[in-house]
């Protein structure tokens, strides 16, 4: 069976959820993966310290785009300080597939821009 490009990964890649821009928005961040050229940005609207709405936008490989799409569904309604503390493993678990070291940055790009938007920290999640 296909281990990486599972049907749901490809489905999210082809039909990403919460994709596009949000205007107005309260928080935003944009970044790329210099290794392969994946790009991803996020717009977040905040109400009562929570993610009221959120959109990802960009272009990249199936893993980076599916990671953004899948996690977006979990993120809406989450407290901002909780988003800021999400660990790398959360992002990997969202994908539900084994991620090799060469694809790890693809899997973590969505989390990286989320952290950038909520904390200003632009470093890669460990």
């Amino acid at each position: 069976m296909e281990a990486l490009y599972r049907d749901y990964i490809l489905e999210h890649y082809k039909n990403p959820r919460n994709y596009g821009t949000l205007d107005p928005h309260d928080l935003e961040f944009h970044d790329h993966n210099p290794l392969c050229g994946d790009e991803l940005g996020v717009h977040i609207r905040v109400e009562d310290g929570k993610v009221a709405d959120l959109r990802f936008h960009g272009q990249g490989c199936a893993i980076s785009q599916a990671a953004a799409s899948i996690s977006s569904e979990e993120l809406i309604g989450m407290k901002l300080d909780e988003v800021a503390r999400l660990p790398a493993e959360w992002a990997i678990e969202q994908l539900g597939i084994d991620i090799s070291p060469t694809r790890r940055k693809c899997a973590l790009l969505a989390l990286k821009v989320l952290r950038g938007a909520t904390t200003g920290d632009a470093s890669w999640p460990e």
Partner: protein
Amino acid sequence: MGVAEKPLADVRADFPVLDREVNGKRLVYLDSAATSQKPQGVLDAVEDYYRRHNANIHRGVYSLAREATELFENARERVAAFAGWDTTDTIFTKNATEAINLVAYAWGREHVGEGDEVLITHMEHHSNIVPWQLLCEERGARLRYLSVSETGELSLDELDAVLAEGRVRLLAVTHVSNVLGTLNPVAEVVRRARVAGARTLVDGSQAAPQLPLDVREIDPDFYAWTGHKALGPTGIGVLHGRHELLQSMRPFLGGGDMISKVEFDSSTWNELPWKFEAGTSPIAEGVGLGAAVDYLSALGMESVRAHEKELTGYALACLPEVDGIRIFGPPDPERRGGVVSFALDGIHPHDVAELCDREAVCIRAGHHCAMPLMRMLGVPATARASFHVYNSRADVDRLVSALQAARRVFAL
């Protein structure tokens, strides 16, 4: 080194790594533009150097040191002859990037000032962009770019127009594009720049491995290339420079070997080429590069070029069989080197490369250290297949089926 001339179809056996299987399939290596594989003769030369001759060069008086020095300096002579340039003005560096940085620092800082321009092109590798950005920023100069046409080519008219403004101090251009494959008319570009009073640097990293090279015929002020793309080891690059410029330039790095005499307050410099080779040189790597150019010369660079052209033509003919493929660069194999960049609709290049790997086909995906060019092409990245002497039509066929398999995985 005594490699007999033979049809290129047989040379695959000279490259031990190509015996490997990946995922149970015969390895197809299509990333020679990133780094080439090494023939047995190069591996032997490096090993023989360490096993039998290792000593530091230019200093020891004992036999071993003499042998090591001879091996290294002999390699320099053969490398210079291979490129068509004087041995004295052929400097060994770490790689092409260091060779270009050497020119940017040791020549650029003295000769590029406020209001001057450095002219490069949109198809340069980052190694021929960033050193000039740093130089221009430091000196208050302006970095300008020549554009690249739809078919991946430069315009000599645009070049003339920029040169006519009279502010270009240096023109730096790639001989062969690592993304588009474009074979630039560097002799003509250099001639026009010289008439306009500009100095010239040609980045030959993709050209030296695959074209019959005569730097004297191109006649630039500087010509840089790297060993590891030309079947040699990593860690060794080459800078050919015009004698009087190298003479007048200050050193790039200071240290041992590059001095004539060191006083407490000042030093005088060694002769060329050693003035630009501070510290212990990459000796084994130089010896290995000597073996690499011997191997290429024995095959004959005309044959190498013919092989690359034939294979590129075959790839340009076969790849359109894959639905949704978009191929970049000049359509005519006469006007390009052995590299083909492409995009597949609906699959990002990173996924294309991952799925090709499952078929044991190694291709590159990404921006190929040419982010400005990606922006011009309107893509975030491309997939790239590149060829060398050990590749065959069967390898291209394997690539085509790997791409078709990738489309099936993505249900396209």
